[in-house]
């Protein structure tokens, strides 16, 4: 059996730094855990993990939605982690459309947001924030106390039950609290029992399937028309 943690957040919100600091804050944990990053195009983060002596793999979704790609490959990832003899598997993914979340029932779910990204980010980030157990806010050392407080308030409006942690991705301040919250309190799960917290909107329009031409004639499937 293996411990799982799902980490999601908009692109560039500081996910990799937070994960590295979290792993670093527990002595000897580096050798016991593996990270899989789900992304669309680049695999740059893998190097960053390697630099810190953390075993990481990247899954490139290419033309697919990274979140859908995540669910359909989760079992393989668990098997990989088991083969490597890890006790914990951490997944990192950057959703793109903010309409779904890679969070699983009974698996600690962390959402990472950047305090510099504007006060409406918690609202706009949808289920990723709403369904998280812990919302981590990065870069708040760079903003005024007032902006930090407003940001926290906006998160609580969307998800009153979550814990909000402010973590400095550079110094790692606060990462140990996150580690304690999600690693020591982590429940062991059988993969047969695993379920998504949120059913993902499926690819139903022609553009999901690769259509590039613009215009009514090319729109098959489920479409919503803007009211102007």
């Amino acid at each position: 059996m293996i411990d799982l943690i799902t980490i999601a957040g908009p692109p560039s919100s500081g996910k990799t730094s937070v994960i590295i600091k979290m792993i670093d804050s527990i002595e000897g944990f580096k050798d016991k855990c593996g990270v899989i990053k789900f992304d669309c195009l680049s695999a740059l983060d893998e190097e960053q993990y390697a630099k810190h002596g953390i075993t990481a793999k990247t899954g490139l979704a290419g033309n697919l939605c990274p979140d859908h790609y995540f669910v359909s490959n989760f079992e393989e990832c668990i098997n990989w982690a088991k083969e490597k003899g890890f006790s914990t598997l951490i997944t990192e993914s950057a959703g793109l459309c903010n309409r779904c979340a890679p969070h699983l029932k009974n698996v600690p779910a962390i959402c990472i947001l950047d305090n510099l990204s504007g006060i409406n980010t918690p609202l706009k980030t949808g289920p990723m924030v709403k369904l998280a157990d812990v919302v981590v806010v990065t870069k708040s050392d760079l903003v005024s106390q007032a902006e930090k407080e407003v940001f926290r308030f906006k998160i609580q409006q969307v998800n009153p039950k979550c814990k909000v942690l402010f973590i400095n991705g550079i110094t790692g301040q606060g990462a140990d609290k996150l580690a304690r919250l999600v690693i020591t309190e982590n429940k062991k799960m059988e993969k047969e029992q695993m379920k998504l917290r949120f059913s993902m909107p499926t690819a139903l329009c022609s553009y999901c399937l690769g259509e590039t031409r613009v215009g009514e004639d090319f729109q098959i499937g489920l479409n919503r028309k803007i009211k102007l």
Partner: protein
Amino acid sequence: METEILLHKPLKEIVNENPLFSDFFSSFQIKAENEHKSFTEYISTQPDSFWDENASSKEEIANLFVDYISGIAASEQKTTIETLDILRGIDKSKNPENCNLHLNPGEITCIVGPTGSGKSRLLADIEWLANGDTPTKRKVLINGQPADEDTSALFGGKLIAQITQNMNFVLDMDVESFLMLHAQSRLLMNAEDAVKEVMKLANELSGEPFDPTTPVTFLSGGQSRALMIADVACIGQAPIVLIDEIENAGVNKKKALDLLVSKDKIVLMATHDPLLILLADKRVVIKNGGMDKIITTNTHEKGYYAELEKMDKAMQEAKDFFRYGNELKES
């Protein structure tokens, strides 16, 4: 706040009593100001087109509303602090620290020590409510009780406010709208008065006046710091204020500290500035990462303040002299 009551109260009354709810309704294009129906009535009488337009469902919106209510309730909690203690841990050489630190509301304490000695570390331990789990092994007690992960949640995340040299305003808003937003997120009843008070105080502190319509990102370093201090004092409700090196920020230091003390805050400030040190009630000396001793500012030192202030003034005048393009000439 009673969820049941709010579900059955006319929307009109809800937004009247607490304008914060307008945010929620307007995000679904519901005109709450003129709505006699209660939330429950309202959502059960909406046509399909309403759900279609909002890409939502009755259950979803009902859940969101209940969550919103508990979110507002959580941010309304208030608690007071009588004491803050930092129990000794170890210094950089792993030797036990010499003393504990005890802090009271309405009191200013400075943290002094050479560069790299560990002043900022002490502030970080307090911000994180250390409980023997940081490199210093210090423990933070609030009202005599060990503080844990849930303590700051108990205070609704309003326990500690920080002001440091690195902080900047980043939002794309003018000063007045921003302060309004902050006051509303703090659920202040008289938000407008609070905003006016902050504007007035910030202008006094900064010495270079600014307008309520200035975008926050356009403020100078001194103006930003002044606004942050006034905001922490009047709108933010954190009873503990941690300040890291604001000496070069160009604010009226004495006024700033007086303001925070008048609001009964516990003020802890890492500084190299002798004027600030003498304005404090006491100071903790950091040596090699450890709390070495606590010195209470004595009357002799308070007397020395006047002398230092004169020197500071001369220095300031010299700065201005050159800043404004003057040159020294043989007389």
